[in-house]
C-alpha cells in the first residue's frame, strides 16, 4: 500500500466513520464483558457466601447457579450482538471504502 493510497483511505469519511464506530463499539462490549466477569470473580474472592444464598427458603438451589449460567449465555449473546452489527453496518462501510479505491 503506497503513501497516496494510505492518505486517500485515511481521509475517506466512510473509513473514519468505520474506525470510530467500530472501535467504540468493540471497546464498550469488551468493558461490559470484563466488568461482568470481574464482578463475578471478585465476588467469589471477597464474598463467596453471597453466591451461596438460596433462591428461596425451601430450595437448595443457590443464586450462584443461575448467575453462572446467565454469564455463559451472556458471553454468547455479546458475540451475537457484535457479529450482527458487524455483518451489516461495518461490512457495508468496508465495501464502500473498497469500491471507492476501485473507481479510480
Amino acid at each position, binding site marked *: *500500500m503506497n503513501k497516496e493510497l*494510505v492518505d486517500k*483511505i*485515511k481521509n475517506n469519511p466512510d*473509513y473514519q466513520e*468505520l*474506525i470510530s464506530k*467500530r472501535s467504540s463499539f*468493540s*471497546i464498550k*462490549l*469488551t468493558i461490559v*464483558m*470484563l466488568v*461482568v*466477569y*470481574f464482578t*463475578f*470473580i*471478585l465476588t*467469589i*474472592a*471477597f464474598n*463467596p*457466601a453471597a*453466591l*451461596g444464598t*438460596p433462591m428461596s427458603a425451601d*430450595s*437448595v*438451589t*443457590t443464586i*450462584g*447457579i443461575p448467575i*453462572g*449460567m446467565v*454469564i*455463559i*449465555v451472556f*458471553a*454468547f449473546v*455479546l*458475540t*451475537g450482538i*457484535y*457479529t450482527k452489527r*458487524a*455483518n451489516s453496518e461495518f*461490512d457495508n462501510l*468496508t465495501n464502500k*471504502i*473498497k469500491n471507492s*479505491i476501485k473507481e479510480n
Partner: protein
Amino acid sequence: MNMMNRIFLFLILGTIAVFASGTIDGEIEKQALNVSAIVMFVIFVGATLGITYWAAKRTKSAKDFYTAGGGITGLQNGMAIAGDYMSAASFLGISGLVYLKGYDGLIYSIGFLVGWPIILFIIAEPLRNLGKYTFADVASYRLKQTPIRTLAASGSIATVILYLIAQMVGSGKLIQLLFGLQYEVAVVLVGVLMVLYVTFGGMLATTWVQIIKAFLLLSGATFMAIAVMAHYDFSFGSLFAEAVEMKGIEVMSPGGLVSDPISAISLAVALMFGTAGLPHILMRFFTVSDAKEARKSVFFATGFIGYFYILTFIIGFGAIVMVFKNPHYLDLAKQAISGGSPILGGNNMAAIHLSHAVGGDFFLGFISAVAFATILAVVSGLTLAGASAISHDLYASVFKKGNADSVSEMKVSKMATVALGIVAIIMGIAFEKQNIAFVVGLAFAIAASANFPILLLSMYWKKLTTRGAVIGGSIGLATAVMLVILGPIVWVQILGNAEAIFPYKYPALFSVTAAFVGIWFFSITDSSHDAEAEREAFEAQYIRSQTGIGAEGASEH
C-alpha cells in the same frame, strides 16, 4: 498413493492387532476389555484415515497444508475451534471438578469462556486481515522478521510442547483405563496417528477430524445431560436437592478454588489472555476466507463452547447423584486404604462412569471412543501449529529470509511434524509418573505473557518497535517460566521445598504486566532509524487490519 493406501491399511490392521494383544496381559489397574468401545474407536480411526486420504489428494501447496486452502466456512471453523478447546482435559477435567466440588467447576468453565468475546471484539478480524499462516505473520508485519519470528516461534513451540505433554500423559492414562492398553502403547499409538493425520492431510484433515469429533462429543454430552435431566423430570431443583443429599450443601456455592483476590485476578488474566495467545487456536483463523468468516467462527465457537460447559455442569451433577456412592463404580482397593467413596480411575472418570450409568455398555463404549478421538484431534491441531512455527517462521522466514519455495517449506513442515511426534511420544513416556499439574498452567502463562502482548500491541500500538517487542516479550516469557518454577506447585510439590518463593499458583497477572511494561518502555526509548520507519509503517498496516484491503490478494500465493 499406492504406498499411502498400504500405510493406512497397515495402520487399521495394526490398531486392531494392538487392541487384541492388549487384552491378553490385562493388569489389575486396567479396565476390563470394552468391545463396543474398541469397535467404535476403530470405526472412528478408519473414517478419519479415510478423510486424511481424501485431504492428502487436495493438499498440494503450503497454503493447503497450513490453512486447508482458506476455504473453511465460519460455521465449520467455529466447530473446529470449539473442538480444539473441548479437549479431553476440559471434558473429563471440568465434569470431574463439578463432580468433586460442585459449583467450583462452573467458575472454571466461565473463566475459560469469557476470553472468547474479547478475542472477537479485538483480535479475530485484524488477525485474519494481516496474517497468512501463523500469528507471527501479524506480529512481524511491520517489524524486523528475524528477531520477531524467532521470539514468536519460540513462544509457539514452547506452548505447543507443554500442551502436548499434558495431552499425551492424559491420553496414555485414559486409554490405559478405558481400553486396557499399556501406557506406552497408547502414547505411541496417539503419536503415530497424529503424525499421519498432519503429514498427509495437513490442515484440511486436521480440521475435519476436529469437526467430526466436536460433533460426536457434543451429541454424546447432550444425550448424557438429557438422560440425567429426564430422571428428574427436567427439574434442576430436584437434581440439586438429591446432589445436596449425597454430598452436602457445599456443592451449591463457591468453595476454596479461588481464595484470595490476587489469585482470582491472576487466574482470570491467564485464562483470558492465554486463550488469545494459543498458537493452535490462532492458526484456525487463517483457514477461513476473510474477516467476516473469522468473525462468524468466533460467534459459533462461543456458542458451542458455552453450550458444552452447561452440559458438563449437568453431567458433573449427574455423576454426583448416579455415580457417587454407587457400588458399581466404587474403587474398593482404594477405599480399603484411604476410606471415603473413591470411584474407579479417579474423579476425572466421573463422566465416563456416568455414561455407563445412563446408557449401559454400548454408550460407555461410545463416550470412551469419543474421549480418545478428542485427544487425537487436539494433539493433531497442536502438532500442526508447532510444525508451522518451525517451517514457516523459523525455516522459511528466518533461515531462508523469505526465499523458500512452497515445496521445500512443506517438506520442512512434514519433517517438523514427525520430529514433534517423536518428541511428544518421548516426553509422554518420560512424564508418565511426574506431576504435570503445572504444565497446562505454564502453557497458558507463556501464551498470555509472551504471545498475546506482542500480538495485541503490534495490531494497535503505533509506537511499538522491534526492540520493544523482543525485549518485552522475552521478559514476559522469562517471568512466566521463572514464577511457575518458584511457585507452590513446582517449588514445593515437585522440588520438595518447604515454602514457595513466589506464593501464587498463577503468575499471569505479574508476567503479563511485566511484558506490557517492558514492551512499552523499550519501544518509547527506541530512537533508532529503523524504529522511526516501523512507526511510519503502522498507518498502512492499520488500514489493512481494519478493512482487509490488500489482504485477499496477498494470501493467494
